[in-house]
């Protein structure tokens, strides 16, 4: 028995010891990402977008004379595993941490990067991420605190809705969005006709659509992940739902269009970031991404791509790989495409790490996302 114990003990110590050595002229950037589990699509896009940017940056001589390399760790879309992975990454004193994308994992890890004073460039959109006082957290897309007011305006002015049914996915992303939109709807005098949660991975939407139809809503706001969006749209069309279906970024995404096909036609909403943006640099990005990875990038791909140029610009402004100074330089930074083409669209970061940039109102017509209006930056 003692023998087995020793064996186990030796094995444990040996395993915990496995740590990577640092090469001299390569700067390693840990990526703590959702490569499996519910967030696999988002995490993979975010990673590939970042890698695409790294290739270009390295081919052009890197940052401050050094090449960048991404070292990924899979969170399996689990906040506990994300914490462990960030802990592991922080032990090697990195210059920044990329990810995670899921808000729950971001919330679980941001106190650690704040304490270690390492900038963390995330994909999470929950409203509360930037309100916790971390000086080291940076978004690459709008938080729900920014996007939901825009959607609520659209519901009031564009869809002229008085009663809105809300469908949200019962996870941190969906719940956060639901809480934010309900607040915004109330201040605009719009009633919530139905408040329906669905499960991540849910397949049968017959009952949910029946509920929506019976609610008397004159518009339906759908805030769920890609696959559930597609299944919901298919079921809604099947049951002949004729009220406008409104979404935020995800619902109008390429993946949803691919999966739902004609059922996606007519969907409208607000899009924070899209490869269909009427900007040549974005179209060029989308083409290169697809050529390299053999699938179409979604907004998370663009977020990863922008994250790389955001870091590069801040690091070059500081002139050295000092995480504290880089984070300080990131606050209040505005990056324009004429100086840094890789940023694609002009973007600014404020003191809380919130991003500001133009966004779009869009509609799906004949299986394609069509931009109908460009909304200006909040603080131009």
């Amino acid at each position, binding site marked *: 028995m*003692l023998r087995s114990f020793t064996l186990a003990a030796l094995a444990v110590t040996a395993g915990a010891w496995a740590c990577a050595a640092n090469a001299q002229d390569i700067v390693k950037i840990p990526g703590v990402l959702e490569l499996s589990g519910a967030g696999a699509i988002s995490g993979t896009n975010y990673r590939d977008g970042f890698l695409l940017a790294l290739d270009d940056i390295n081919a052009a001589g890197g940052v401050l004379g050094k090449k960048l390399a991404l070292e990924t760790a899979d969170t399996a879309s689990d906040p506990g595993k994300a914490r462990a992975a960030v802990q592991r990454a922080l032990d090697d004193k990195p210059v920044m941490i990329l990810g995670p994308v899921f808000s729950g994992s971001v919330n679980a890890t941001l106190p650690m990067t704040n304490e270690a004073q390492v900038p963390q460039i995330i994909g999470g959109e929950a409203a509360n991420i930037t309100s916790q006082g971390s000086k080291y957290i940076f978004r690459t897309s709008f938080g729900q605190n920014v996007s939901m007011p825009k959607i609520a305006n659209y519901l009031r002015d564009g869809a002229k809705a008085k009663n809105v049914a809300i469908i949200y996915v019962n996870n941190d992303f969906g719940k956060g969005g639901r809480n934010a939109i309900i607040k915004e709807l109330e201040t605009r005098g719009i009633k919530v006709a139905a408040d329906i949660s669905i499960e991540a991975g849910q397949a049968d939407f017959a009952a949910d659509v029946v509920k929506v139809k019976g609610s008397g809503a004159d518009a339906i706001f759908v805030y769920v992940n890609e696959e559930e969006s597609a299944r919901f749209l298919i079921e809604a069309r099947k049951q002949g739902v004729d009220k406008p279906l409104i979404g935020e970024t995800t619902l109008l995404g390429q993946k949803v269009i691919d999966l739902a096909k004609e059922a996606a036609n007519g969907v409208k909403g607000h899009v924070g970031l899209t490869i269909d943006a009427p900007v040549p640099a974005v179209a060029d990005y989308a083409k290169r991404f697809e050529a390299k990875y053999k699938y179409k990038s979604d907004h998370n791909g663009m977020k990863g791509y922008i994250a790389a140029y955001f870091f590069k610009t801040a690091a070059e402004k500081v002139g050295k790989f000092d995480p504290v100074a880089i984070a300080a330089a990131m606050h209040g930074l505005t990056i324009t495409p004429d100086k840094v083409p890789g940023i694609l669209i002009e973007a600014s970061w404020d003191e809380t790490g919130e991003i500001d940039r133009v966004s779009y109102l869009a509609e799906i017509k004949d299986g394609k996302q069509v931009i109908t209006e460009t909304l200006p930056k909040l603080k131009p």
Partner: protein
Amino acid sequence: MNRNLKIIFGLVLVLVFIAGPADLTGLGIPWPGLKRYGTYILTLWLVTAVAAMGVNLIVGYAGQETLAQAAFLGIGAFTTALLQKAGVPFGLNFLASGVICFIVGIALGFPALRVQKHYLAFVTLAFSVFVWLLIRNEEWLTGGVNGIKDIRRPILLGISLRPALYYYWLVLALTAVLTAAMWWLLRSPWGRAFTALRENAIRAESLGIDVRGYTLMAFAIGSAYAGFAGAMYAPLVEFIDPSPFALGASLQFLLMVVAGGAGSFVGPFVGAVVAVLLPEWLRFAEGYYLIIFAIIVMLLMAFCPTGIVGLFARLTTKARRPHADDKGPSLGGPNLGGDPTAAATTVAGANS
């Protein structure tokens, strides 16, 4: 191995566990210790092993199946987190987590054990999903999908156990106590009843052992171990949300115990290595690590259903006795089956 050698061996082992992750360069020993992540993983291994010990009692000794260990872990973790937020000190949280899981275990096991074999497994499966849904939906209590943040590590005699190494020592001490308690339990007359039970339930019953009572106690104590593990897990991770307590995690506990060696005392510790450390070692395989993990588990089950401990015992016996018959050593293997014929062979083997 003679007795003195065993004691020395044991002492060395204890030293390795205490000092292993610490930085010893200050003492003149060229050993830099583990980084925070290494210490974290080591602590997680201990916590996992405690919960797995509970599964081992239920599965390996009492011959039942539980699919709710992660749910009990969750109950323990949330009990500790919530009590801490209410200002209760860690010691009481720790006890409360175990006691609550014990009571829930009795309440759950009592009706389920009334009916036949496998039904405890079904009831625990349902229970697992209920608990997960409660944790996720009852936002007022558990924080829902956002979980509970900033769970503090305890302060002991004025020293904050916030540093990874200090907290590791606390978990190590608690694990040692729980391991000793389990050891004592299994060696006590009360515990010996289990051995009689798993070898032949019908004969045990005819000898006047209250089979149902013992099985129920085993289930409740096993579940309480998950509660204790949960109480250590919450301050370790400092953040809890519903995902680690889902049904899949309960299946993993069952898997690690059987893979480690159900019914063997060190089985849970070895099993926890498989669950916590194997993924670290398979990191090189990136996306393929789960595929490799699955294949290893399936091969192990096919060639050595007594788990890694059984495999190890078989190898050392063979090495020591090269001319021994090829019948594996009698591990007092548990009756793992629902199949009465399999049970009969095990019993016959044990009696021979």
